């Protein structure tokens, strides 16, 4: 099936640990202004539908979609919120185009994590109130339990997890958008204070503020626009279960299920060979290895060894998180997925600057919604010829 939807514009508001000079509305306006300029469109004249990804408790506002339209140019237009990851919102917009309703859509997500006083309280509020929350624990216990189980079953090691952190934060040194660039050693990561053992503090992506806006178009509409289209070759989203009691604790089943659908949709049969560059979830160091295996970008149990061999480095066979990922750029809450898509769009256009992967033609962006979810969303994007 020919791709019917392209990404034709991308904009952002820089990713930083804090953004005290801008309100969330102003941050969204800035990212949107960049995206529309990039696409060469006027939102008031050209854009037909708008989708924002966010969750009320991250904003501190119930029914946050109220406050979305003005700063996106969406007043009195079809506008909706997806309380989900930005890639889910992107696919919601894509489906509206695929259904034949619209030709030009806008997708937005942002993070004002620095405005949330105790983000861990919000994450904990996502736990089941009857069976899990009464234990009164920092919610990252979920990651600690999962990391140990994953390492035990896959044979990967804490040292290899530490090398994920080293790689991604070094990649961030080449990315001016990144909030947390650093030159660290594996010893630095392993020697950092423990968080939820075997998870150390440096194994966790830190929160950051920032916003991303993308412009999507049908094939017909994309043809008349200024940017070379980046085609949505395939997309999928998947939930395993909402219960800690019945989920898989070792192998990111949600990511494998998502990959099955994604590759079927995209016509990808050998992901390891057919994907040139990947931005995949690294909210915690071990997650990158776990997701690499679940997405079949390496053989089961081989992610750590391949990483150590340099396969996923910027100059490797399959660069993973050349942007710096969440570890290097920051955890942007529900905007994390769109930030990954933004990076792939820049890579496929050849605009990634010092972290450009030479000759990238096909890229994959995948996100996980974080604790306590088992939900992933992913897209395969392709450069137009």
């Amino acid at each position, binding site marked *: 099936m020919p791709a019917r939807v392209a990404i034709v514009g991308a904009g952002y508001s820089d990713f930083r640990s804090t953004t005290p000079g801008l309100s969330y509305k102003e941050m969204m306006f800035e990212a949107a202004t960049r995206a529309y300029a990039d696409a060469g469109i006027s939102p008031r004249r050209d854009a037909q539908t708008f989708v924002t990804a966010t969750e009320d408790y991250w904003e501190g506002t119930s029914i946050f979609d109220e406050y979305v339209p003005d700063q996106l140019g969406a007043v009195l237009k079809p506008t909706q919120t997806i309380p989900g990851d930005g890639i889910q919102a992107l696919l919601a917009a894509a489906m509206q185009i695929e259904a034949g*309703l619209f030709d030009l859509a806008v997708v937005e997500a942002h993070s004002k994590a620095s405005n949330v006083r105790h983000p861990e309280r919000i994450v904990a509020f996502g736990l089941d109130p009857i069976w899990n929350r009464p234990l009164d624990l920092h919610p990252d216990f979920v990651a600690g339990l999962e990391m140990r189980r994953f390492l035990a079953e896959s044979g990967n090691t804490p040292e290899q997890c530490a090398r994920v952190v080293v790689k991604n934060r070094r990649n961030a040194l080449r990315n001016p958008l990144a909030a947390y660039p650093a030159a660290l050693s594996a010893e630095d990561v392993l020697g950092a204070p423990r968080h939820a053992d075997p998870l150390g503090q440096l194994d966790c992506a830190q929160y950051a503020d920032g916003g991303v806006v993308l412009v999507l178009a049908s094939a017909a509409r994309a043809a008349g626009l200024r940017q070379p289209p980046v085609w949505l070759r395939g997309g999928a989203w998947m939930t395993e*279960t909402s219960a800690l009691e019945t989920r898989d604790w070792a192998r990111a089943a949600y990511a494998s299920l998502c990959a099955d659908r994604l590759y079927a949709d995209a016509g990808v049969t050998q992901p390891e060979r057919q994907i040139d560059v990947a931005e995949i979830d690294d909210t915690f160091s071990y997650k990158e290895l776990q997701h690499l295996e679940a997405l079949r970008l390496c053989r089961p149990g081989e992610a750590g060894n391949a990483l150590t061999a340099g396969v996923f480095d910027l100059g490797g066979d399959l660069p993973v998180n050349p942007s710096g990922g969440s570890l290097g750029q920051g955890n942007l809450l529900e905007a994390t997925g769109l930030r990954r898509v933004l990076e792939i769009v820049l890579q496929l256009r050849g605009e990634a600057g010092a972290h450009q992967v030479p000759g990238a033609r096909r890229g994959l962006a995948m996100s996980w919604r974080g604790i306590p979810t088992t939900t992933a969303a992913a897209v395969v994007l392709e450069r137009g010829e």
Partner: protein
Amino acid sequence: MRRVAVVGAGMTRFMRRALETPQELSFEASRMALDSCELRLADVDVVCIGTAPDAFDGVHMKGEHLAHGAGGWHRPVMRSYVGGGTGVFAAIQGWYQVASGRADVALVLCEEKMSSARPHPQGAFLTIFDNITERPLLPNLIWIFALEMRRYMETYHIPKELIAQVAVKNKRNALDHPCAQLAAEITVEDVLKSEVLAWPVQRLDVSPTSDGAVALILASEDQATRITDRPVWIDGVGWNVDTAYWTDRDLAYPMYVERAARMAYDMAGIRDPRHELDVVEAYDPFDYKELHHLEGLMICGRGEAPRLTADGVTRRDGDLPVCPSGGLLGVGNPIAAAGLMKVAEIFWQLRGEAGKRQVPGKPRRGLAQAWGDLMQVGTVVVMSV
């Protein structure tokens, strides 16, 4: 454009307080919807969830929380959100997922458990107001309804007696709904004598807070005609969001509903809604809202809906029955579930399965509409047999 039909529906009772957890409510409605069209969960491709503020049920990422009760195990689950308009929008999300070709059968589930919020669910509504310019005034939800209601009454010189008729009609209609929470035989006099909450809004002008869930099964044309010999087709969908600066608008007329209706009518080929629609479920969280929305839907001119009601046109046995279900005023208002209940009611009415609520004359075409946010969102679905 792929045709999409509603083929099954289910719902729980609407209750002030339910024993069931949010997930259990979701299960009950989903199970009934599957049973109603003799499908198994394995037949479902995607799950579309609609639920309003997380602050009601008291769980961050409520869509994730509900997923396993709504058939979301190992499935693509996506939640959408447009405030009070969410219930009808969830059906629109189901529509575009199927119409896009990405799914053949969608389970659409809306749930709300408002009773969890303490000291009162109204407390959650404080957080829908602007965080900086409005919340410090300690507003409640009734404020904005009272403000809009007075603006509507004064603009068109509408006496309260004419508005109260809506409460009388809908609560009476609800006597025939087995799930109703506030069905009653009352008089206009009763409404006018009921406790004043925020003049001109009185106790009997208002729908209750509720717990409950509703589910629909949507299917592509191929699947729909295999599943049932009486599919109800979705002919048109529309949604629209106005500016967040609600104090900058004239509250007398819901332009956002008009825009949403025009979108849906254009799709459905409707030019004269008053005569081309046979049954309408307009959104009625407050009695005047039904009138306001009938005008926004262009079923009558501005300020003319009270006369339409006084003339009996909107009675269940009238020329254009409105809210034959009993609406939110009579059946109850578990926000998103109440909106989807309206779509379910049109489904049952068009199939001739509404029992004692059945409108006469074999209706062939109906409309369900919801409203939401800060006097801001319109969502519309047009259906036919």
